[in-house]
């Protein structure tokens, strides 16, 4: 092992290798609450350094964990004895294509950094998570879903192409159907390098609030929406609506045109930013926000469950993902009750290490096949998903 460590040290610039007590401690946790002390932390600055690390780790069968900002809540980047790849140096934002509305982003760029850079050119990245300090690479590897997924879809839709390395240090350019070999695989088959993502030009903003006393009314309001220009359609139960100073339960809809009856841009922006801040408001109350992917048929039962358990319920009704604020000790109960409904817990921020037992069998089978092809020594993020 000493040989391996000595060689690892040589793979990156002197300041980019860390195995001191404090660094290992600082990389031993993320936002999930899981802890695991890594073997070393490496911060590659370019593709060549990263490729050498992967080849070397493969030779010595060292587990490698790619890490962005460490904001994940499922423990995807925490592993005892692993080599942590801090990808934050992959921080380029270039080639904004104003014809095709795309920009090339390094995996280590945070959403806040990306949107600050894009705002100067009159553009924005639409899939903004609650925690803007998350990196694009981390979010893409989880296939993170946000309220604007209603219009633009998830990371499979927003990423046009992604460059990545597999565990053997082979370079791949993922496009179209191949994107699923990098997006949503939580770093178990590839390390994302750069992504060409779609962006939106700044646009008009209007909104509507439709009363939705029950699931049927919410779905009716959703079905009645125009086919074009709807940015998001968010369900808010009575308590969630009250926190936004609205009358609930209701469906909050935002449009990228004049379609809504609330036309004061400042008011609509405030409303949407409050919606975005809802998770944070609930965190401040000591609650955890968990999610479930639902079909239309499962919606009434899920809303009934939330009402019975007194869980604040809201979320991306348009995207089929609803959120519930539960006591931190009730997270397991939530997942089990959602499964009992026949629905799929998760779907918004990956499964990671914490929820790997809930990964559907067909997804596991697909990932195992992918690992056989791209990571047959199982060094990339072992213990996550599969």
């Amino acid at each position, binding site marked *: 092992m000493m040989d391996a460590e000595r060689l690892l040290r040589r793979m990156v610039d002197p300041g980019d290798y860390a195995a001191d007590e*404090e*660094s290992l*401690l*600082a*990389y031993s*946790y*993320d*936002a999930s*609450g899981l802890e695991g002390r890594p073997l070393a*932390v490496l*911060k590659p600055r370019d593709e060549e350094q990263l490729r050498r690390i992967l080849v070397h780790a493969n030779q010595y069968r060292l587990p490698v964990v790619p890490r962005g*900002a*460490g*904001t994940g809540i499922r423990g995807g980047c925490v592993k005892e004895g692993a080599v942590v790849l*801090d990808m*934050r*140096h992959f921080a380029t934002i270039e080639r904004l294509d104003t014809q095709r509305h795309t920009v090339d982003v390094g995996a280590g760029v*945070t959403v*806040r*950094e990306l949107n600050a850079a894009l705002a100067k050119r009159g553009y924005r990245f639409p899939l903004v998570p609650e*925690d*803007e*300090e998350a990196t694009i690479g981390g979010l893409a590897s989880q296939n993170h879903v946000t309220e604007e997924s209603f219009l633009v879809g998830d990371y499979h839709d927003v990423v046009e192409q992604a460059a990545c390395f597999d565990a053997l240090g082979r370079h791949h350019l993922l496009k179209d159907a191949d994107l699923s070999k990098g997006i949503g695989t939580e770093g178990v088959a590839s390390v994302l390098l750069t992504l060409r993502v779609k962006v939106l030009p700044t646009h008009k903003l209007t909104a509507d609030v439709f009363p939705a006393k029950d699931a049927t009314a919410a779905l009716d309001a959703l079905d009645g929406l125009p086919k074009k220009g709807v940015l998001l359609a968010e369900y808010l139960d009575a308590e969630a609506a009250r926190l936004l100073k609205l009358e609930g339960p209701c469906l909050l809809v935002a449009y990228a045109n004049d379609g809504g009856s609330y036309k004061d841009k400042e008011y609509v922006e405030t409303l949407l930013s409050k919606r975005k*801040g809802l998770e*944070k*408001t609930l*965190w*401040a109350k*000591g609650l955890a926000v968990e999610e479930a992917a639902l079909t239309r048929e499962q919606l009434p039962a899920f809303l009934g469950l939330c009402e019975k358990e007194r869980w604040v319920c809201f979320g991306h009704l348009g995207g089929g993902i609803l959120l519930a604020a539960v006591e931190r000790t009730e997270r397991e109960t939530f997942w089990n009750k959602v499964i009992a409904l026949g629905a799929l817990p998760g779907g918004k921020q990956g499964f990671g290490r914490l929820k790997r037992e809930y990964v559907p069998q067909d997804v596991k089978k697909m990932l195992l096949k992918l690992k056989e092809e791209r990571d047959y020594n199982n060094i990339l993020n072992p213990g996550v998903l599969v």
Partner: protein
Amino acid sequence: MIFRRKEEEKKGADACILCRLCDAGSSYPLTLDERRSLRHAVWLAKNRRESAWLYAAMLNGVGEKACPIGIAIDDAIIDARRRMVEKGMETKENREFFAKLRQGKNPYA
């Protein structure tokens, strides 16, 4: 002070959910050194760990303003530093740190 929450609304480091929103205003985005992140300082305070890196926090109130939970971050870090001193745990690094500061040198170098 107008940006700070009312005293009674503030919470201790134990409430931290490690979201990292406080780090937007810390030196972490510039240095990309996790040890210097405000989140790590709060984690140290939350886990009652003594470390010289508690002194990397600038205590400028920006992180506290950004915290969605309303944690009194600066107070929590000062408390953690105080615990270190009370335990007689002024580290070698800490002594060197202040010596460098007094000499007008870069304390982190």
